[in-house]
């Protein structure tokens, strides 16, 4: 457990991880064109503005894919296998897709989910809604 990879915020992403610690999904919204940026970075890949504000988003999304890992790729996860990892498209923008765990045994593409932040350090766990 102790050798699990922990989040390593970089100089662009620290506010994202502060949001996770505060129990909020926060993203950069471009001040130039209004698009959300993902992953966190200084420049907008649509309008090339360097201006953005960090805002809380709904935390709602839809599972667009999932995998169930059986092989131990990192020893730190050997007690977890098999475990499910999901890819979630957030409601705010359809080209932003995030990785996380799922708080349900049976993932289904199209399942509606909400991000909660659990554990120490806190990480995204997607919970089925509706």
């Amino acid at each position, binding site marked *: 457990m102790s050798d699990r990879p922990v989040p*390593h915020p970089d100089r662009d992403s620290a506010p994202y991880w502060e949001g996770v610690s505060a129990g909020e999904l926060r993203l950069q919204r471009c001040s130039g064109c209004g698009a959300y940026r993902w992953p966190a970075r200084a420049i907008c890949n649509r309008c090339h503005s360097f201006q953005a504000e960090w805002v809380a988003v709904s935390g709602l999304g839809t599972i667009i894919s999932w995998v169930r890992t059986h092989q131990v*790729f990192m020893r730190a996860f050997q007690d*977890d296998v098999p475990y499910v990892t999901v890819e979630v498209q957030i409601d705010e923008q359809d080209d932003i897709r995030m990785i996380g765990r799922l708080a349900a045994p049976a993932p289904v593409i199209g399942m509606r989910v909400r991000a909660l932040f659990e554990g120490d350090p806190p990480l995204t766990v997607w919970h089925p809604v509706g």
Partner: protein
Amino acid sequence: MAFDLADKAAIAGVGYTEFSKNSGVSTLTLATRAIMAALQDAGLDPARLDGIATHRVGDSIPSSVVAQAMGIRDLHYFVDHFGGGGSSQAVVGQAAMAVAAGVADYVVCYRAINARSEFRMGGTGRPTVDSIETQYQAPYGYVAPPQQYAMVAQAYMQRYGVTERHLGAVAVTQRRHASLNPHALMRTPITYEEYLASRWVVEPFRLLDCCLETDAAVAVLVCSAERARDLKQPPVTIRAAAWGGGQTLFSNQQPPPGTSLAAQMAPRLFGMAGLKPADVDVAMIYDCFTPAVLIQLEDYGFCAKGEGGAFTLSGATALGGSMPVNTHGGFLSEGYVHGWNHIAEAAAQLRGQAGDRQVTGARIALSTGAPGYVGGVTSALLLEGGS
């Protein structure tokens, strides 16, 4: 076009090391063995080499060290590109540009890896790749290429009705090809039932959906088409080379699930050569995992989007089919040299030296790099023999 790369350069020599799970030697030794084999194949004196090029992901010796070991005293061209399988065909394409531009005369391109005994891609023996995306993935135990490709595969399969039957057809077909290849690591034919019975690695991938992790090197000698005609082997002309990319699997602005970066690049590739997909006689398609073959069959235009599985199941991609694919057994069964044994097999087919797996009359071959899902870039070559 100000400068036409088509047909200016050729592959004049190809060299392999043995493929194994534990080479017992350094990547420097692997590189120099493959390079010497390529030079011997071409009949070129090592003293004539003036260019060297490779790509690495922190898993192999730098090309400058290999240049020194080869005794190249006056290097005119070098590349030590950071990148994985998406860069493989690009390294050869860039060498073609270098010789076409007259920067160098004889460029040896290679990839040397102890990908089983030293630096496994699976994340067990090496640090994760330096990327701004890793921080959002590694804490979840999502670190290895099979996980990333499995995520692509699950969405692709759902969207287009592709099933394990289709993935299995890729594995079974390529193993049958490998059974005809004395160089292949896995030569015993498999049935679909054996495919189904292989253990889960990452659902939807079973063990037999995944490429082999291999210790090996492959080297390719690139020179002008004119110089190649004076060497020992029938020249393999580089009809076209293409580079593509711009989105990774994780960044916004990515293509829709199940479409790779090859889709936007392929028209440029065929355009440079003045060819169309139907002109290709044999294709080496980057097969790190089975669905990568299906997705690229579609994205390079050999069948319609979503039809790669049915196309493969029909037998079209088998030896004797309309579009033989990965005749050496590919990364799934011959060995995994990160894109490079595809180039070597394409050359073998175009020279008519592929033995029992020879595609009769093969004149045009496609060789592709990783389709971009992890590294965010891709590349490909169109090659012609018999000129």
